[in-house]
Every structure is written in structure tokens, then in C-alpha cells.
């Protein structure tokens, strides 16, 4: 989080007992909520609308938040439920013409034998939201499969298999089949060689 929390948000409540209103903590999770929303929508405008809806819902349903539990997980749950229910309602396949990663800034070339980040992001964008969701929650945010299961209402085993399938799909989209690397070369060379063929 780069933006420091706005401490002034609490200053108005000086006459009240010093109990902490959990709603004052929502502000601390704006960055993670937006990052998660972008991961799901792949579209800035849609992501911002989603965060806005999440804030309003969280605010008015704060009585359902159990104090002492993970607020970010709670907010993420509201956010993803809102995302999927909107999606069911509108059935809109947002094509994302100005895809946030389509034409991207400075691209760091993969001279170090790593997967090219641009290729990675383009592949990531092509995944289904369900796949992006588990990958971001498990792979990037460090939630356990049990936590993700609780957040998404999906069985633990399904979270695991979905994560594996998502990783596999991602590798396929980058033109890398898991375990396909030739053993006679080093692993890095193998990946670079294959990535190179794909890019050409």
C-alpha cells in the first residue's frame, strides 16, 4: 500500500466512547480492493465501480463483519460476490478494447531467463475471471486454499484443482507446456527458447 491511511477519518468521533468502528478501517484496504477488482475485471472503469459498490455494501453490512477476523478477506468476499452477481445479471462480456495491458509501457526484456512479463500479463488477461481469481488469491495474495474456499464458497478440493488448472492454462497460453522443457538444456534456457519461438 503506497497511500497512507487517512487518519482524519476518525477525528469526527471525539465524543463517542473509544470503541473502534470497523468501518473506519475500510479505508486501509482501498489499494488491495482495487488491485483485486482490476484482477477480476481487467478494466479500470469497471474495477472502480466494483470497489465503489463494495464500499457501500461493506458500510451498510458492517454488523455482519465479525470483529477480530480478517477484514481484507471479508471485503474481498463482498467484492467478488458483487462481481459475479453483476456478471450474471448483465451477462455482459466486456471485451476490454483498451485492455490495460494490451499496449503497455516500458517492457523489460527477458534477458535474465525469466518469463517475459508482457507475455505473462497478456496470457493472464485471457484467463477466465474464475482462474484469475484463484491465482491472485492463492498465488499472489498468499491466502490459503482454506481461506479462499471460505471466501468463495467453493470446496477446498475445487479451489486446489482450479488453481492447478489455472496455472496450466496460463502456461499453455504462453506456449509452455508444464514439464515439457527439454532436459538436456538448463531449465531457464528451455523456457527462453520456447518463449522465443512463440514471440517470433
Amino acid at each position: 500500500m503506497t497511500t497512507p491511511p487517512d487518519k482524519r477519518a476518525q477525528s469526527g468521533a471525539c465524543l463517542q466512547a473509544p470503541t473502534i468502528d470497523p468501518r473506519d478501517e475500510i479505508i486501509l484496504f482501498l489499494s488491495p480492493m482495487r488491485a483485486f477488482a482490476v484482477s477480476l475485471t481487467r478494466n479500470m472503469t469497471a474495477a472502480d465501480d466494483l470497489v465503489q459498490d463494495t464500499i457501500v455494501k461493506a458500510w451498510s453490512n458492517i454488523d455482519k463483519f465479525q470483529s477480530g477476523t480478517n477484514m481484507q478477506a471479508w471485503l474481498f468476499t463482498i467484492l467478488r460476490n458483487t462481481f459475479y452477481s453483476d456478471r450474471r445479471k448483465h451477462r455482459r462480456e466486456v471485451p476490454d478494447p483498451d485492455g490495460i495491458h494490451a499496449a503497455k509501457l516500458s517492457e523489460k526484456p527477458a534477458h535474465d531467463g525469466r518469463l517475459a512479463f508482457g507475455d505473462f500479463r497478456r496470457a493472464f488477461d485471457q484467463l477466465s475471471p474464475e482462474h484469475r481469481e484463484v491465482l491472485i488469491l492463492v498465488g499472489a495474495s498468499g491466502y490459503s486454499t482454506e481461506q479462499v474456499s471460505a471466501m468463495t464458497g467453493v470446496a477446498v478440493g475445487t479451489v486446489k484443482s482450479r488453481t492447478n488448472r489455472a496455472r496450466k492454462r496460463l502456461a499453455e497460453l504462453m506456449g509452455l507446456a508444464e514439464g515439457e522443457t527439454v532436459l538436456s538444456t538448463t531449465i531457464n534456457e528451455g523456457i527462453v527458447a520456447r518463449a522465443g519461438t512463440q514471440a517470433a
Partner: protein
Amino acid sequence: MLTTKLMSVEMAKESPKHHLHEQIDENLKRVYEDALKAEIPDRFRQLLAQLKDKERKS
């Protein structure tokens, strides 16, 4: 026997599949962290302030 078993576990960790897995997670973290670094529009803080304000008046 045990050493053979341990060896194969070690080899599994070194396998291309495991390596690819690590690189995918590394890149996922970068995707997420890049998004975390993005500046937050003011509208969210304003919204929270409005919600609080509305409640104090009611």
C-alpha cells in the same frame, strides 16, 4: 531405500514443472503488486466521508 526416496523428492522440486510454477507465482505477485501501487482515486475516500457524514446527521 530411504535415500532414493529423498532423492526423488529433491528431483521433483528441481523439476521444470516446479520451476515454471515458481516463475508463474513470481509473475502473479508482480501483477498484483503493480496494481497495489496504483494511485487510489479520491472518489473512494470521498465516498467513505459521505457515508460517515450521512450517518452522523441521521
